[in-house]
């Protein structure tokens, strides 16, 4: 068992699960979407990205790319959230809807990541 692989898989899957947890619920209802869950989803996604750096295989490159997509989407959502709550004063249904839809996009990227991870694992010969 390789500790590095454990952490790698752990963060990749955790990024997806947190992202999913945040995403479920009515799209424009702020009560259904937890701020802290979003914070952790973003941090875990960033750590997963760093862990993917350095693998120069083709699969490694695709994994890194999906992770970067997820980061980009989540950071965009965070900026909108911060702007909505701090500048306009409150998070309206419209703003929440765009935050959740961006997070939904990030989730798709995370799903791709996990599928690739599973595919790679199944291909292993031992």
């Amino acid at each position, binding site marked *: 068992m390789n500790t590095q692989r454990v952490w790698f898989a752990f963060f990749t899957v955790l990024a997806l699960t947190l992202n999913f947890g945040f995403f479920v619920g009515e799209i424009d209802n702020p009560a259904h979407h937890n701020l802290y869950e979003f914070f952790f989803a973003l941090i875990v996604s960033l*750590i997963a990205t*760093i*862990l993917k750096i*350095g693998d*120069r295989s083709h699969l490694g490159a695709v994994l890194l790319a999906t992770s970067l997509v997820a980061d980009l989407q989540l950071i965009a959502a965070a900026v909108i959230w911060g702007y909505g709550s*701090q500048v306009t004063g409150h998070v309206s249904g419209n703003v929440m809807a765009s935050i959740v839809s961006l997070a939904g996009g990030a989730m798709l990227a995370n799903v791709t990541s996990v599928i690739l991870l599973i595919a790679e694992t199944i291909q292993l010969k031992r």
Partner: protein
Amino acid sequence: MESTHRTRSRIRGVAMWLLLPRLKAPLIALIIAYSVSILGLVLIPGQEPGGGVYYLSFLDAFFVVSYTATTIGFGEIPHPFTAQQKMWMLFVMYSTVIAWLYAIGSVLSVISDPGFRRLRAYQRTVGRIQAHKQPFWIVCGYGGAGNQVIRFMDQSGIRSVMIESNQTRADTAKLSDMTYDLDVLVGDASLPQTLVDAGVQSALCRGVLALTDHNQTNLTIATNTRILAPRVLVHARSESDANTRNLRSFNTDVVIDPARVAARSLTQLIRKPRAFALYHELVDPDFNQIEILNVPDSGHWVVCAGDRLGDNITEAFLRAEIPFCLVSPEVSTIADSITWVQGLGTEANTLRQARITEAVGIVAGTNDDGDNLSILLTAQTENERLITVARRNKPTSEPVFRQGNFHYVLREGRIIAQEMYARITTPLLHQFIGQLEGMPEALVQGIIEKLNQRLGNQSPDLAHFDISLDAEDAPGVLPFLNTARGPKVADLLVDPGADHLNMPLICLLLVRFNGDLVPFPGEGLLLEENDRMLLWGAAGSHHRLHLLIRRADLFDSVLSSRRKTAG
């Protein structure tokens, strides 16, 4: 094999990806320190001035942590911190500042890493080589020979790419005075990848010169090039007979053994001083005059040389029947029929044993410059009329040898550079030099006199160049070939100006389309299509000749005026 090659080039392709993994740990430390700090600030309750409880938003917390981590320190916002918040801030300060410095430090150490910088410099050079639009030669090894040959080639407008394994020498190479920016690849030329990076497989690569100081390296360069790029020419330096045979066995185009060439040059200098002077002028772009050394026919030579040079000179002198006395520390392996004196030759006593007072010349050819100078100075006090030949080993000793007024200085690097230059610039020159070896001295004398006659009483710098009578080079001459007007060699050597004076040029060699060689063709020889000619004369006269062979009207008037004077 295929896959390892690809992996390798990918690594070379993006140096940044090689070093990013080293930044993984600091980046993760930074993210964790930030996220824990932000989370703590968000969760710990603060107190408003009015007494109410508030919580920092993520934006505020991120803001506070960011300016704390970067040691900017804007203060306590939005309200003065409570004791609880201050305790957390202490943790924030130490953890984030340390994580931040760790990350910055890692980035800086990666960027300033000597290995990383070398890799970047290497990649940039490879990139420049790939962007080349002009044909080039790859020169391996910036020693005495490499240094000289790239300068010679530059003077003929041929570009080169240098491979040198020693960083200090490579830096010197970059500073060399050239008309273009020399690309120097710092790497081991015996590795195939280095040759590939230097562009050996490029369509513009004309050839590889293996000039390193090690026989084995030169051999490896030659074999690698043969396989990587079979159409590319390979010229190699070799310093042992076994190595020479080895190189020849797989058709290395040119193998140059400096000791052998030096021995041949010396023989030529003594037996055929005119051919030697002509050869010397043609193959050395720095040497633009004909200087004939008068060597008395009789009398013996004193040769002070120990190593391979001694053996080669012995062999060459025996073959040319030049009487000589060898002075060397060890007994010669070649023949016991030769006169031999044991010693270095630095002492007058040794030289007297070699009958220095009756000798015509002395060759100081040991592998130590100090010894060579000592030999020559001692010999000159014993016999003032001696012809002195010095061997210069180290390029750094050049000033003394230049000032020493010796009749001839053997410079190993220069000898190699001359030989290679003669083969690289134009194939005609090399063919002519081959002819020159067998030419009687009287004919060479005739060539030189002919040129002197055309030069009149001037002595301009001399140069050689070649032309081909084809549609591209000589559209002005082609229409008259195979007609009744029958242009001859002499008709080309005429100034296209109004008076049609003879130009200070002579034709050294004419090569027919079918490969027939006509050395020193007579002026009445009829020209044919696709003839190639090697011309020699005053530097700069090729401009006028090129004008003449391009313009049919000029050539027509030359032909008419010459027929008139002849008729």
